[in-house]
């Protein structure tokens, strides 16, 4: 488990992170969301002992990172896509990592296989694509078989297959009981991956808790309908207090109501539907919450 309490970092006149408090639970993927420059990387670096906090504490499994013996055996951290030296091969980088951690060398080929780089193991990392470097960074973080994983923007540079692979991989890790904290500003991706989220803006925490609760609290899921009766659909939804927008060609976007209520309204009104898709409205929640970060501290529904 990761516990952050009152974490603050000030660089001269810039308050990069301000009084952050949240918990990341084992067996769940927690998305750490914020715009560029919101303070995500600084926070992760403070958790990993690379940046000294101005005040507050960050502990992993109850201890400060710098006080943990053999930390790489407990915590895997990927802060940048370039943890590997470009002039060395992937295998050489992994062997150096294994030597410093004390991991058996067999684990190197095992992990390169796991992240799909075994065929490129002897290739210089400088010749790797960004996506391949991300995979290598992930493999290096897993060298010590850690129970906690902290990843900073791991989806950057990954192609759609890579992103799908990462999503499934992190979900699988969480099912193994590992604690996974992933920072990102790719909201659609996070909405498919995260169980919990911590949202920050300008160094302030604006929300934290289970993803469903946060989305529900802000406006629920987004539902897209294709119907021959869009006007009637809009009337029914708006009459019930929801939001409905006509998108043309029979398409209506509905939000602001629980999914179950929308389903019941459509059934009662006997509106014909050709197509219905749902997406969790993380983007809407994020935009609303980060619009005024100073005033919003309402969503602290951290799961216990």
């Amino acid at each position, binding site marked *: 488990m990761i516990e952050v309490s009152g974490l603050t970092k000030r660089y001269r006149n810039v308050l990069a992170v301000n009084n952050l408090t949240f918990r990341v639970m084992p067996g769940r993927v927690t998305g750490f969301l914020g715009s560029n420059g919101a303070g995500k990387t600084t926070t992760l670096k403070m958790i990993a*002992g690379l940046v000294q906090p101005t005040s507050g504490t960050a502990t992993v499994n109850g201890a400060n990172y*710098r006080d943990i013996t053999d930390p790489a055996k407990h*915590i895997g951290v990927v802060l940048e896509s370039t943890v*590997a*030296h470009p002039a060395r091969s992937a295998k*050489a980088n992994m062997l150096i990592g294994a*030597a410093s*951690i004390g991991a058996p060398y067999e684990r190197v080929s095992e992990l390169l296989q796991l992240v799909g780089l075994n065929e490129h193991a002897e290739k210089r990392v400088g010749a790797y694509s960004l996506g391949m470097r991300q995979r290598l960074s992930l493999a290096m973080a897993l060298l010590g078989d850690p129970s906690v994983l902290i990843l900073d923007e791991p989806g950057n540079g990954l192609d759609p297959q890579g992103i799908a692979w990462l999503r499934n991989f992190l979900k699988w890790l969480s099912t193994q009981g590992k604690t996974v904290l992933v920072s990102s500003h790719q909201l659609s991706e996070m909405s498919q991956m995260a169980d919990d989220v911590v949202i920050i803006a300008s160094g302030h925490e604006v929300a934290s808790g289970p993803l469903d609760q946060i989305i529900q609290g802000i406006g629920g899921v987004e539902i897209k309908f294709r119907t021959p009766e869009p006007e009637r659909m809009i009337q029914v939804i708006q009459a019930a207090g929801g939001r409905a927008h006509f998108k043309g060609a029979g398409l209506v976007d509905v939000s602001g109501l629980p999914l179950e209520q929308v389903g019941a309204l459509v059934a009662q009104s006997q509106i014909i539907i050709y197509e219905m898709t749902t997406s969790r409205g993380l983007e809407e929640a994020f935009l609303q919450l980060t619009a005024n970060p100073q005033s919003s501290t309402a969503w602290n529904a951290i799961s216990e």
Partner: protein
Amino acid sequence: MIRLIHSELLKYRTLRSTWVLMGSGAALAFLIVILFLHIAHTSIVNGASAYGSAGSGIGSTDYGSSGWYPSVLYQSYNYPQVFAVVLGIICVTSEYRYSTASFTYLVEPQRVRVLGAKLVASVVWGILYGVLVAFLSAAVGVLFSAVWNLDPGTFLRNSLIYLPVDLAGFVLFMLIGVGIGTLIHNQVIAIISGVGLLTIGPALIILLYAIAPYVVPYLPQTALMALERVPAHASGIGSRASLLPWWGGGMVLIGYAALLSVMGATTVLKSDI
């Protein structure tokens, strides 16, 4: 700590620049030995006495005298030792240049231990590099001394006598490089500073000799000359300066390496990565 040292040794081994710099240094030593032996051979053939003076400048005096062979060896090691400084600098600065420092410090958050491992690994690689250069210089020196009717036996004897201090020179220059790299994380600036300091050394010595002669023996290059027991009269830059005893030169170089490392460690401990 053993794991960290093993990791740092691997870092040296798996970096192409290590082999390029060591190979270049060895090739330079090879060329310098041949050049000096050829000059000696040509001068003798042209009528200068085997023990006579011919010309002025570095290593050109008293061919065949007891002081001449050490000065040739000193010259053949001196330039490769500049590469030793660069190797030491790269050992540290490449971590910052390619952002591998974050992984290194994540594995071992006690940064002083990381620096300690780098210093130990640099000692090992400094010895390896020194042995390579010394072996090549001796082999080439003996071979061409025989070919050009000089004294291969004396060349070999001098190579063996001076081997320990020459190796110490390589090791200490590697450590000074690590110290510079720890202090200056920007690789380009660190290399320019380190190499610049050593290459402008002769000019600096002459300048300082005029204004503050008591400082001259404590400069890195004059300290190295003292350590390697280069006769002052056989070395262009040493001819005007009095040198420390060999152990004093060694102590001065150890002092430089220690001072730079401590200053660098202080910086690294405080800095955010």
